[in-house]
């Protein structure tokens, strides 16, 4: 996964998008089919119904701040989101995204370089981000090897199974 080139449409989101809006507490223990319908509903009400498989998120500072709930990353993956690019990422969100097999990259200039709906290409392993609509090419921090290995396995649970610890 980390070696693939991802192509899709960019959803431009604001600063400080918290886990409370990515995975509202009221649906905390509901199955993912229910949870995913409420992603971002308090700030971008149309998101869950309009997002398409292959779409990516280009966010501002501190994306995924808040709680440890992995459902924040899992819900996005369940909606078909293939990558998160943000000016800065909450540590827990980044950890969880990698754990569920969703690449998450830090790129200081991405938020300003995209408008809603721009076509985007990302190479997570190299940290390369292209705004196809404007032609602008950006550099993100490349994902460390440890994270690439988890992504390549399809997430940390798949890796655990693969290691035969069980």
């Amino acid at each position, binding site marked *: 996964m980390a070696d693939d080139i991802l192509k899709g449409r960019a959803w431009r989101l604001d600063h*400080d998008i*918290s886990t*409370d*809006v990515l995975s*509202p*507490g*009221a649906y*905390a*223990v509901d199955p993912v089919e229910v949870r995913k319908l409420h992603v971002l509903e*308090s*700030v971008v009400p149309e998101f869950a119904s309009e997002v398409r498989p292959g779409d990516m998120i280009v966010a501002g*500072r*501190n994306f995924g*701040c*808040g*709680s*440890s*709930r*992995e459902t924040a*990353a899992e819900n996005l993956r369940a909606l078909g989101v293939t990558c998160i690019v943000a000016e*800065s*990422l*909450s*540590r*827990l969100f*980044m*950890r*969880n995204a990698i*754990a*569920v097999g969703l690449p998450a990259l830090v790129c200081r200039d991405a938020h300003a370089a995209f408008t809603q709906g721009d076509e985007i290409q990302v190479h997570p392993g190299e940290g390369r981000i292209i705004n196809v609509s404007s032609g602008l090419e950006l550099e993100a921090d490349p994902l*460390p090897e*440890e994270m690439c290995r988890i992504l390549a396995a399809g*997430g*940390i*649970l798949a*890796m*655990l*199974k693969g290691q035969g*610890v*069980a």
Partner: protein
Amino acid sequence: MNLAERILARAAGRDQVAAGEFVMAEVDLALLHDIFAAQVFDLLREVGVDRVSDPDRTVVVIDHLVPAPSTAAAELHQKIREHVARLGIGAFYDAGRGICHQLLPEQGHIRPGELVVGTDSHTTTYGALGAGGTGIGTSDMVYALATGRLWFRVPETIRFEMTGQLMSGVSWKDVILHLAGRFGSDGAQYRAMEFAGPAVAGADMSSRLTVSNMALEMGAKFGLFAADEVTDAYLRDHGGAGTEPFQPDPDATYEAVHEIALSDLEPQVALPHEVDRVSPVVEVEGITINQAFIGSCTNGRIEDLRAAAEVLAGKHIADGVRLLVAPASQAVLGEALETGVAASLVEAGASILAPGCGPCFGGHGGLLAPGERCIGTHNRNFIGRMGSAQAEIYLASPATVAASALTGHITDPRHLEAPDGR
């Protein structure tokens, strides 16, 4: 090495580690609470593991949905109890015992220098005792329980040198709100915060727990205090054998060192809907409130209840205000009953909730309607956190919350005795 490096070097079985390195570390203690425990144990079974690597150092707490507000929550708790029995987990705190981040220090599970992971972001709280506490998600927890180990990036550390003395009416909650406002909600993103300097020696354990708890709201991986006499005394009082000092090396390096002078600090409040939108209370006095909340793992300890009771004693909350108090644990409630603190709160008009998370995360018990305002002692004021997305949450110290409950509007506790009656 600084504290974070010392903690991760020990856990990784290395003499030396430096910021930026990735290490595979042995986990000393794992915490799960009722929102995620059943899911983690189910997943563990799904990947084919029918044990946890160290049942005596796995702690399970039912604290969020307490008492069970729905049949679904009750079933969730039932499942957790079954898993706990099946896996032979040593430390299990059932519904009503209290909030995880209160119970672990209070019941003697936390030791300086150790690495603690929890399926909860505020696991940073244990940094108050010099432990490397940090939150992880459910998949990472499955990995940690199955193998006893987990990967970590050694974080850069920002050191905060605290000097001076807090004015009366000002608490360490005000200090950490001030830091959040000054450095931002990502001011310590993916970093460790180390709290040091002469003022820290004067901070009791309750205050340190508040500060380390909210280090997370600045993005921190750890919020660390060195272990000193205060730590030693706390551990002896809570079933432990005390501790040796656990300090950073004299030649430790830091990404940044900030000096924070406390003497002029005034009571602070975080405004909706960001923890780093912080203002001195005096600048927003007069905003009316519907609900006041004293509790949570940030400020639900006996010291917090006592600070509120001192403000409220012999008075009554304003008409139109609901005051909710959720003690952080059964032991806290017991002490509040014994010392008369609970009576002062109830006589002033407070409702006492069961020890637990209560309204803090908007799960149940004290939710807000559209247009309502709540001032609370908890740690987050995100949009929709306590019910309606059209409600507003303000965060402050126990004294400020109590003062505001008395007047019905946001109030600096130092102004209560003012001759104009404010």
